[in-house]
Each structure stands twice: as C-alpha cells, then as structure tokens.
C-alpha cells in the first residue's frame, strides 16, 4: 500500500477536521443520567438543545479540558436553543470574543481558497449558507469521549418559522446516523466552521439550527442578561367562519382568532383590548390563525409597538399595543 495513498490522505483530513472541532464539543449531563452534547460557543457559554434540558437549572458539563458545572441561563423553546453559563464565569465575559459580526450569514461566497487543507481554526463564523449536498460532520461528546458522525446536508431551504414561533435563519435537514447523544452537537463544515447545532426533528429527521440563529439568541441574552419573551397578554381562540361571513369580511382563511381573555395588568389590557375582539390584521398583514398570531408575536421584540386591527361589535378598530415581556416572577 502506498504510504501516501489518496485513501490515507482522505482519512487524515477527516480526522484532522474532527480533531480541530473537539475542543468545542461538550457532553451535558442533565439530572442523573440524561446525556446529550453541547457546543462550547464561547469561553463562558455553552449551547445545547433546550428540549433536552427540560426544567433543569444546573447541569454537569464535560469538555476536553475536564469537568465543570454550568447554569442554565436561557432556554428558548421556540428555537430549541439553550444557553448555559459556565459556573464562576461572570455575565458577558468573553463577549468581546463573540462571533458577533462575523456570524452574519453571507450567501453565495462559495469559492473557498482553503479547501483541501486542514482548517486553521474552528471558528464560530459562518462564511456561507450550507447547500444541499454539502458534506458535514457532527461532533459531539459522551462521557466515554468525543464522538463524530459524517453526513450530508439533505435539505437546505430558506429561513422558516417553527411551529413554536421561532424564527430560524435556514431550514437545514441533515442525513447523518444520529443517536440521542448527538442532540445539541456541533455541525462542522469542511472549513472547520461551526455552522449549526444538530437536534432531532419530527419524523426522525435531524435538523440543524443555524449558527446565525444561535448568535441572535446569544446576543439577546448578552444584552438583557436573560432571554426576554414577547408578551401581549391575550388568550386567543379560533372561530370558524361560514362562507358568507368570510366574503363579507374579505378573508381567505376559514378561521379568525378571537380574544378569549385579557390578562390583568398586561400590555393588551393597557391598550384596552377586550374579550371578544376578532383579530383582522397585525401590522397590516392578515392574521390568519391563532398559530400565525403566536408565531408573529413570538418573533417580535419587547418594546416594539404593533398595530392590531380588530373587529369589535361589527366595526373595525385599530389598536396600537406596545409588546411587553412575559412575567417571570
């Protein structure tokens, strides 16, 4: 066998890429036994999958450099991103080293001078959007050591809204041999960049939560010290419209969201929203359904003012509401 066979070079490059990513791979132990993976995003921050964290407050983390404790500082159920702060690290430390600007996704920069050579650095920058067919490696960690699985980007779609109301920068589905220990693991591109976090999706799909989405959540936590949840204070229920009413209102959707309750002291109450108001539009866009409203409000920012057009007593009425923050205490 030739000493420098293509097969050996291929194998060496693959192993080198995983080696570079390894310091970023964390094992996360929730409670007594639940083990998943995480990404060392910054010196003080570890990213993992929010659903697997459940209601935990502290977790044990294992890295190349040893074991440490981390506090769960944010779990975003809408994007499945959980942020852990290494115990002892102060808020915002390492923020200057954050990917920040470099995490902006720029499409089309496909040319790549470094292709073929081992990556110089595992960075958090996202130089380009993933394409369908791209080769990726998912690097995670278990208590028995680091783990890696190679795979392919099976689907690379546009930005999408999760059913939980999360704004996700790119729809990524990965063809990899996934097992639960890879939940929350880093998805690495051939340049050595962390491009996404791997999480289980519906129908046994493996989804990638893009680095840009993670950076957006991290930036909010850096700014506020916690993750603020947008909040109006209205409970909505769908009403089914008959064809006559639909054409009278000029609506396509069969259902209309009706206010079924207004929380005391909430932004909605302060804006005089009332029980029975029927939601027609939000900032000029037709309010299609309860779910649609939930997604739009979830992706708004506290402090932002939105215009809600409602039908009250058969008459349209526009109400401006400043979105607040869901009470935490």
């Amino acid at each position: 066998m030739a000493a420098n066979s293509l097969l050996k070079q291929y194998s060496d490059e693959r192993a080198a890429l995983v080696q570079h990513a390894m310091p970023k791979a964390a094992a996360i132990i929730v409670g007594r036994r639940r083990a998943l993976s995480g990404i060392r995003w910054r010196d003080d921050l570890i990213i993992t999958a929010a659903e697997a964290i459940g209601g935990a407050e502290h977790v044990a983390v294992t890295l190349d450099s040893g074991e440490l404790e981390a506090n769960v500082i944010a779990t975003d159920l809408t994007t499945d991103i959980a942020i852990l702060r290494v115990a002892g690290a102060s808020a915002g430390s390492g923020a200057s080293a954050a990917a920040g600007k470099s995490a902006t996704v720029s499409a089309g920069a496909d040319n790549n001078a470094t292709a073929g050579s081992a990556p110089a650095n595992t960075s958090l920058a996202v130089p380009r959007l993933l394409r369908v067919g791209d080769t990726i490696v998912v690097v995670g960690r278990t208590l028995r050591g680091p783990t890696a699985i190679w795979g392919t980007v099976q689907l690379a779609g546009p930005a999408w809204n999760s059913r939980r109301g999360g704004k996700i920068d790119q729809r990524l589905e990965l063809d990899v041999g996934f097992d639960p220990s890879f939940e929350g693991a880093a998805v690495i591109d051939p340049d050595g960049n962390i491009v996404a976090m791997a999480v289980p999706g519906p129908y046994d799909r493996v989804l990638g939560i893009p680095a840009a989405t993670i950076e957006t959540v991290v930036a909010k936590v850096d700014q506020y010290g916690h993750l603020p949840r947008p909040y109006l204070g209205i409970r909505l229920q769908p009403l089914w419209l008959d064809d006559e009413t639909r054409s009278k209102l000029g609506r396509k959707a069969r259902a209309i969201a009706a206010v079924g309750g207004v929380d005391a002291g909430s932004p909605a109450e302060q804006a005089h929203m009332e029980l029975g108001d029927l939601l027609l539009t939000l900032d000029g866009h037709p309010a299609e359904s309860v779910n649609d409203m939930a997604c739009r409000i979830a992706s708004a920012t506290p402090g932002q003012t939105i215009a809600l057009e409602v039908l009250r007593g058969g008459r349209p009425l526009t109400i401006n509401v400043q979105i607040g923050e869901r009470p935490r205490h």
Partner: protein
Amino acid sequence: MRGLAEPPNRPHGRPVSAILATADEPFRNRVLERLLAAGYDDLEVAELPAALADLLRESKQTLVIVGGTWPDPQAFLRVAVNAGALPLVLLESSALEAEGEALAMGARAALQSDIPASSLAAALAAVDAGLIVLEPSARALLLSANRDRFAPAPANSVAEPAPSRVEASSPVEPPAAAPTPRKGRPLTSREREILSLVASGTSNKGIARVLSVSANTVKFHLAAVFDKLNAATRAEAVAEAIRRGELSL
C-alpha cells in the same frame, strides 16, 4: 426540537427513570411504547444480563423492568437483585407460579405485561417508593395454602431492602384503577400559572421558588398539564396551550 413542527415522540419531565432489561425485542418495543406514553423518557435498555450489570454499576438508577415469557427474565432478575436494584417483572402469561417464583427471587412487582400505561407508571412509582406491587389475582399467593411453596427463598438470594428506601410493612395490591383520563380537560389556574412561567423560560426550581412550593409539586402539576394537553415536552405544552386558548400570547 422534535416538537417544532409536529407532535414529538419524546416525552419529558417525569422524575422516575428506569432500565428496561430484556432480549425480547417485540416485548421491549411494546413496553417502551407504553412507558413513553406514560411519560418516561429517561429509559435505558439492556439487552444482555451483562449489559444490565454494567448499567447498574455506572448509574444510581435502581428501577429495572424485566420481562417476557417466563423463565427468560430470570437471568436479568438475578443480576438486578444481586446489584440491590428494584426489579419489576412483567409476565406474558398469568401463571400464578411464575409470579410467585419471580417474587421469591426478589422481584418487587410481578404484573401482566399488558397492563395499561397508567397502571405501569403507578407500579413504577410504588416500587420506587419501596412498596411491593402485585396483580389482584396474586392475592391467592398470600392467602392460600400454597403460602409455603412461595415463601421467600433464603436471605442471600432475596433482595435485601435497598438501603435508605422505605420498606412497606406488607405487600399491597396495585394502586387503585387508573385515574380518569385527563386529556382535553381545561387547565386549573395554578396549572396555567405554572405553564406561563415555563413559557417565560423558568426552570422547575425557579417556578418552585416563585410559587413557594417544592420542585416536586411543580413536577406533579406539570405532569398533569402535559397529560391534559397531550404534550410530551415543555415546548409542545406551551404551543398546545396557546392553540387552545389556555395560555396568553
């Protein structure tokens, strides 16, 4: 993020976890399905007695479910008993002898494998609390003239009470019939309050602090919430509650 777009399969949030030890795949799948339906997401599977021994060495987990057609589960049961674990035996047939043998070997519960998920969950909780759980039919074991035949084997082969666990003073019947189904029922105001805190990203302990209750109480309420909303994860519960008009935006 299984739940982001579709109802997920992976439940969350139950305090008790268990090891399912069996080489019988169809049996394993049936029991797993039932356990997942009952909210047990924290499950290990051991396919060989040696694997079970390893798992029991590695973890503090002590609830072990063994089963299949008797006497196949015996090897697993022996490993579990020797490791000081709390084994539950799920039997394929309703042979009283098998139940008696299993109990004599140190099983904490001997039940039919087709019991409803809710009863299985109740049995796991009872065994975890140190109780012994029997089928109602097994009452005969205790009362009949056959008592001697099924008397506990010598102490060295019988499970000593697991240290630090409460040992029941007497065997008990299975907990009362499954509670009335909660699916689809409206949330209580307390449950709504807790779910709103979940939606704001608060941990179980954080919720306990806010409401001045124990973390276990929070888990108990959340279990009821998940049940009512037919949800398996926090994200799914929040989304479903919003959809039903139970939780505000």
